[in-house]
């Protein structure tokens, strides 16, 4: 039963990872953070005055690592204070987490919102020479979606870190907890979630949504750079319209990436532990457990490489060579 419980918690972690990375990508789309930001930044220089939100606090990985680590540190401080009080009253330790994780995530999101504010005003002020105004309605209107999407991502990452650092206690299997402290796990997953959001979801925004008036099915030529699409289905486009579009494909695909990574990383480790004779007391043979996990991981990587090759072959046959000038 405890081993089944371990698998169940693993699925909860994978589900939270999916939600976290999807919201991370959508938040970066609303704020025009990361790589497509180069186009938002370039547009006024090309004479394209726009109403997109413009922030590039830093690379997404570092930005999210900071938000999540702040959340993790606050949550850990609260847990350290609250848990002894609950123990003294004979109550479950889980009540402390129910309060600590959302409060930690809220503080992380507020700090992120402050950085988004200074970033937008600073960047747009620097565009004065290209006659790009600072639209106050764009500024105020985007801060809440940025903070709420960021909150969703950060609360899920903090919850993942909490579950992983207490997995032994939660599942009843000795030694199942990760040895890293809560804020360090938040740092690790914050970095990873940002790196994945930046690597995958941004393509849907940068290639498709930001250049929707350019031909579909071709890479964006260098001559198009800066010539972003500024009009929406009705009226002038803002960054909020970008999130609605990317939520249909880029966001969920990004969430799927992180969800699959977390799922298969944990799955191969748990299967390896079972091979190594996992019981409630712990592992009988650690070397077999580690080797089993490594073997399964190599097989998954080989399958992925073959799948990618099949996908490339299918695309070449289906789409054919480039047609046009």
């Amino acid at each position, binding site marked *: 039963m405890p081993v089944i419980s371990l698998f169940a918690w693993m699925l909860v972690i994978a589900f939270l990872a999916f939600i976290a990375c999807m919201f991370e990508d959508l938040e970066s789309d609303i704020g025009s953070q990361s790589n497509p930001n180069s186009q938002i930044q370039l547009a006024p220089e090309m004479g394209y005055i726009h109403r997109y939100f413009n922030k590039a606090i830093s690379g997404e990985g570092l930005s999210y690592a900071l938000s999540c680590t702040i959340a993790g540190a606050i949550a850990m401080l609260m847990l350290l204070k609250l848990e002894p009080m609950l123990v003294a009253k004979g109550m479950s330790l889980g009540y402390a987490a129910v309060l600590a994780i959302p409060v930690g995530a809220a503080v992380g999101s507020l700090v992120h919102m402050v950085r988004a504010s200074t970033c937008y005003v600073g960047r747009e002020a620097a565009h004065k020479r290209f006659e790009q105004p600072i639209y106050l309605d764009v500024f105020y209107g985007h801060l809440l979606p940025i903070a709420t999407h960021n909150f969703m991502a950060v609360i899920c990452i903090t919850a993942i870190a909490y579950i992983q650092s207490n997995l032994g206690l939660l599942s009843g299997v000795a030694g199942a907890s990760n040895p890293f402290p809560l804020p360090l796990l938040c740092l690790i997953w914050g970095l990873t979630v940002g790196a994945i959001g930046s690597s995958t979801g941004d393509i849907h925004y940068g290639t498709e949504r930001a250049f929707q008036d350019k031909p579909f099915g071709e*890479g964006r030529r260098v001559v198009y750079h800066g010539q972003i699409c500024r009009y929406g289905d009705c009226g002038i486009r803002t960054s909020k319209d970008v999130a609605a579009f990317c939520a249909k494909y880029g966001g969920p695909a990004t969430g799927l990436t992180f969800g699959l990574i977390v799922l298969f990383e944990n799955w191969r480790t748990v299967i390896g532990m079972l091979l190594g004779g996992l019981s409630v007391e712990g592992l009988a043979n650690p070397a077999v457990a580690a080797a089993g996990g490594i073997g399964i991981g190599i097989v998954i990587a080989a399958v992925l490489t073959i799948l990618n090759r099949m996908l490339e072959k299918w695309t070449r046959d289906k789409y054919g060579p480039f047609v046009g000038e």
Partner: protein
Amino acid sequence: MIETLLLVLVCIIIGGILSSLAVHLMPVGGAPAAMATATGIATGCVMLMTGAAVTGLFTASTVASFWATNPSVILVALSGAVGAMLMMGFTMFVANLIYIFGAGVVPCSGRVAVDPITRESQTEYKTPRTDGHGVPTVSYVSGILGGFSGGFGGALIYVVLVSDSYAHFSVATAGIVAMGIFIANAIIAAYNIGGTIEGFHDPKFKARIQTGLTCALIVSVLCGVIVVIAMLTGTLVGGVM
């Protein structure tokens, strides 16, 4: 004692050099790749490689905790390598899904006319006035190898720092020091690449790898010496956290 110090120093140097090699193997297109104007993953080298390496580090830390004392260095390092490899594999695969179905482009290399692995022509699939787009097979394989190399390097540094037979730092301190050494090497490698790179088949790789690895050696020796001083003085034994 001297042998232990030397062993820790050598492992940090090997880990640092492998981290640098990993960054050079990444198919990184940077900002242009987000607009399908360059081949590779749409982010910076350091960001992608650090994300992959910390995923490996997470698994390595779990695997290292399987042993009550003296974790197996090679098995923990390999666990980290496979973790980073999987992170790269899933990321590149889903990136290709978005390129193909979200933007309608065919993955192709902009730096070579023929894919060295599949032997398929690339030029006619490339959009004019771009530097390629998507993650073709050769870049995918290069990314997988890069993930393996970087994950191995990061986890190797971690396990020698955390093991009670070697540096005996606390788990958290070992994790932070390993990440620090890894990121220092990754940033130096990113400066050496200077923008975008498609993988081991890119002419840039052959031209710049020697400089990159030499710099990684110097940086890793410096980092290793600091760790050795910390070990000798006992500053971080048992950890600061």
